[in-house]
């Protein structure tokens, strides 16, 4: 969702002038805040998810499906319960980039009990229901990552024509009206990214070459209005060309955030989850269609990376450095560049572009090199959005300038600082759903079945991070592993399901579940989820992307020219809607599931937990009144 400061956004020119100011004060704020919270400990695990939904309107008579620009109407209603009684909400709602998107989170974070795993699905269903209730006939909340005809003619309802010469994005395809209007942040980001870059963003997705696809595939962009050949020049052969932030940020994704016990644990967790990001991306692949064309990729990641790429030509290495400080190899939306925990430092093998002044400032204030490198790397980016009222801040207390930069580095993992005036702890956000080579492998067509990924050969057991220096995690099991490479190429099937050479992540999860007290309903639910993952990884169930691709290619209207027409899109989305509603089945993608998910944990579990707490504290504090026995 991003930082939603209110107020008047500055123009790009004014914003750019303050880039260095924000950089310096952002680092200052991090240092001050860090000193206050570095020893904060949160002994209770908390975690939560954020799901973005899109709204679609179906025109059954004309077999048309359009993105419904209604977020600005229903969000205020969705947010009423939170405004009235924030401590007693089951769901929270937030706006997102596009006016056809709404983002929902659970009202309270999930906790450490196994029973909490059983709440997630029910809460997600509740959120969808709450959104759906506010829509009219033929309007539906849908969770899929990319709308297949985003950017095509009349793809929104109401319909708007793009005005490339005056709009924030200058896009030939994406009208400004599709951007969420009630908050200046999104339009401002769009405009400022383009102005900083001195060109609109250029996204080129390889098209899927089918029997009748014209070769080379190159659209005649002049039909969308002349722009002096800028789009012509930016579009590549055999690619689907897109030119707006909305193509990326208008995708619906899922993020999961975990609160760690301490900063050490957070850093450890951040690093440990990173190798899973490409695997999860491959498993959840759901975006094979872009702007009405079948693509040769299955995921949104590279599109998002290009859609928010504010780097100038100098920074991209196309022109010699004159006005900019350094060449930057990656977009600000990308996979992470470095590990941040001491245990994994040895795996940092690429040069990380950093702001040297920031680095020195951080290290001279007692921040270790690894963390300093991470922050200094984030701060190579200029601020993209500034609000008039929020420039002069108290660096001792506020963290907005820090968050300004931290939240506009969109990476596969995010390391989150605790807010000072709260008891929220150090957190880690897992963002790919939707090791760099692995990220490229993951996006290939049907990567789950066809690709191999670099993965660690041996895993230690889940030993605790009580002492972060878990030498045991890296102890070689045989004497000869010193010279051996620690990783090799494995398929997703092997990584998830194991083989005779690798234990498989699912096996480890099952072992864990077998050793904790987990109630039968939760276990039943989780087993079904694991079954789904097992089959996806093995290839016996299709990913969403593979299924969508198959649907298109076997549709009677499809002409094997990579074009996904309005009617095909309508049929596809309507089928998806019916599957979600339980009115239709799709055994290729989803097994019949009957999870036991529920909005609340069982009373027995809650009671037992409370009783145990009481008994424990009585034992630890024997001076308390001992003739009171705990209630049965």
């Amino acid at each position, binding site marked *: 969702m991003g930082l939603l400061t209110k107020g008047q956004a500055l123009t790009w020119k004014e914003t750019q002038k303050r880039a260095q100011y924000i950089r310096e004060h952002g680092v200052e704020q991090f240092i001050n805040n860090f000193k206050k919270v570095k020893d904060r400990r949160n002994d*209770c695990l908390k975690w939560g998810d954020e799901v973005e939904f899109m709204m679609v309107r179906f025109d059954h008579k004309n077999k048309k499906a359009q993105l419904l620009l209604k977020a600005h109407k229903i969000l205020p209603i969705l947010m009423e319960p939170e405004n009235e009684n924030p401590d007693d909400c089951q769901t929270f709602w937030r706006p997102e980039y596009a006016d056809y998107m709404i983002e929902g989170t659970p009202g309270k974070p999930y906790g450490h009990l196994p029973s909490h795993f059983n709440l997630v699905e029910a809460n997600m269903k509740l959120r969808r229901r709450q959104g759906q209730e506010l829509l009219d006939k033929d309007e539906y909340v849908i969770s899929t990552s990319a709308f297949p005809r985003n950017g095509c003619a009349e793809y929104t309802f109401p319909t708007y024509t793009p005005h490339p010469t005056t709009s924030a994005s200058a896009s030939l395809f994406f009208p400004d009206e599709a951007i969420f209007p009630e908050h200046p942040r999104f339009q401002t980001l769009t405009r400022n990214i383009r102005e900083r870059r001195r060109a609109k963003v250029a996204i080129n997705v390889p098209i899927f070459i089918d029997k009748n696809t014209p070769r080379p595939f190159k659209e005649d962009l002049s039909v969308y209005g002349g722009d002096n050949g800028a789009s012509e020049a930016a579009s590549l052969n055999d690619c689907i060309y897109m030119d707006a932030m909305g193509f990326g940020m208008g995708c619906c994704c899922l993020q999961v955030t975990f609160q760690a016990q301490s900063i050490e644990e957070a850093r450890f967790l951040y690093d440990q989850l990173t190798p899973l990001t490409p695997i999860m991306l491959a498993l959840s692949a759901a975006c094979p269609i872009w702007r009405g064309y079948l693509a040769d990729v299955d995921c949104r990641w590279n599109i998002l990376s290009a859609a928010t790429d504010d780097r100038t030509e100098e920074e991209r290495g196309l022109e010699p450095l004159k006005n900019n400080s350094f060449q930057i190899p990656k977009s600000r939306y990308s996979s992470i560049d470095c590990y941040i925990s001491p245990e994994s430092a040895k795996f940092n093998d690429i040069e990380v572009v950093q702001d040297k002044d920031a680095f020195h400032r951080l290290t001279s204030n007692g921040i270790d090199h690894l963390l300093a490198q991470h922050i200094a790397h984030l701060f190579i980016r200029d601020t993209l959005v500034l609000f008039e009222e929020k420039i002069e801040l108290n660096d001792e207390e506020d963290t907005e300038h820090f968050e300004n930069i931290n939240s506009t580095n969109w990476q596969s993992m995010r390391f989150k600082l605790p807010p000072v005036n709260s008891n929220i702890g150090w957190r880690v956000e897992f963002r790919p759903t939707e090791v760099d080579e692995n990220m490229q492998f993951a996006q290939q067509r049907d990567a789950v079945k066809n690709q191999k990924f670099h993965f660690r050969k041996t895993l230690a*057991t*889940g030993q605790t991070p009580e002492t972060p220096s878990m030498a045991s995690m890296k102890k070689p099991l045989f004497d000869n592993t010193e010279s051996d490479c620690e990783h090799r190429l494995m398929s997703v099937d092997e990584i998830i399901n194991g*083989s005779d050479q690798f234990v498989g992540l699912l096996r480890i999860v099952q072992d864990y579940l077998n050793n904790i007290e987990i109630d039968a309903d939760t276990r039943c639910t989780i087993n079904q989820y694991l079954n789904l993952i097992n089959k996806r990884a093995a290839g016996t169930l299709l990913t969403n992307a593979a299924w969508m691709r198959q649907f298109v290619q076997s549709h009677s209207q499809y002409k094997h020219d990579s074009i996904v027409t309005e009617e095909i899109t309508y049929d596809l989305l309507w089928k998806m809607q019916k599957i979600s509603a339980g009115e239709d089945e799709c055994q290729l993608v989803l097994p019949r599931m009957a999870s036991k998910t529920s909005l609340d944990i069982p009373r027995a579990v809650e009671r037992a937990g409370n009783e145990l707490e009481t008994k*424990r504290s009585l034992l630890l504090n024997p001076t308390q009144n001992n003739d009171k026995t705990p209630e049965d």
Partner: protein
Amino acid sequence: MFDDQEQQQQQDNDKLESLLSPIFPKATSLLFHTGNALTYFKLVRKTNMNITEEIIEYISTMLRTLRKNNNFKQFENETYVKIIPEDINHEGSSSNATGNSGSNTVDYEQLSREDLKISVLQEMKENYLESLLLSFPNYGAKLTIDEILPLWNVVESYMNNQKILSAGVCDFMLPLLLELCDHAKHKPYADQINLGVCCSIPDELNKYVKENDIQLLTHSDPMDIINDSDFQNSIKNYCHEYDALDWRPTWVARYNSIIANRGIIKTKGYFVYASRELPIKS
């Protein structure tokens, strides 16, 4: 990679000379305590080990270590032999341990013995167990409430002394569970059922546990955790053949400790207790 491991095991076996005389000739009680099994790294790499294979693996490892270190003179005259890891951790009094006890004997006398609790608490050096789950032979199918109650009463006395904070049962279906609740002072807080049925719990049982605030938990243990011959064979591989004679595993206890509020498993271990009768020497 597993070839390497099996090769190593073979090499180890070859190195062990056959013993001329038994290690514990007078033993009639035998207790294995694995210590924190999470430290057994090599075992992490094995896939699809069930609990029987796991336990055999632990017993074998412990005996192999014993033989390698030539450290068994101490057992010559012992009648109750305890095989415990040498570097066992001493936990502080504030850790949270859950004990899962599986008994697989048909000898009903065993059910009322207290030594189970004493052994576990003593060997683990804990001040208390947060939860204990009792599993009876054949999932309690052939037992009546009268046979179960004596053991439950023992558990209740530990609860009264706050040595055990909560106790439950395993695989109890309705008539038995109801009877236990009716007769017990401390009702079971949980009934741990086999994974195979967790998605198809009988309605009656479901209703009863919900009304009485009993948690339905799950396990995936077979009815027979380790049988006589498997147990004896694993001893025979590393000891004198007389050391393996006639042992009958009486009960198995699995325990783990979890860091409170974070769901992280800190330790996991097993106790395996066996007994036998020796021919009386003149």
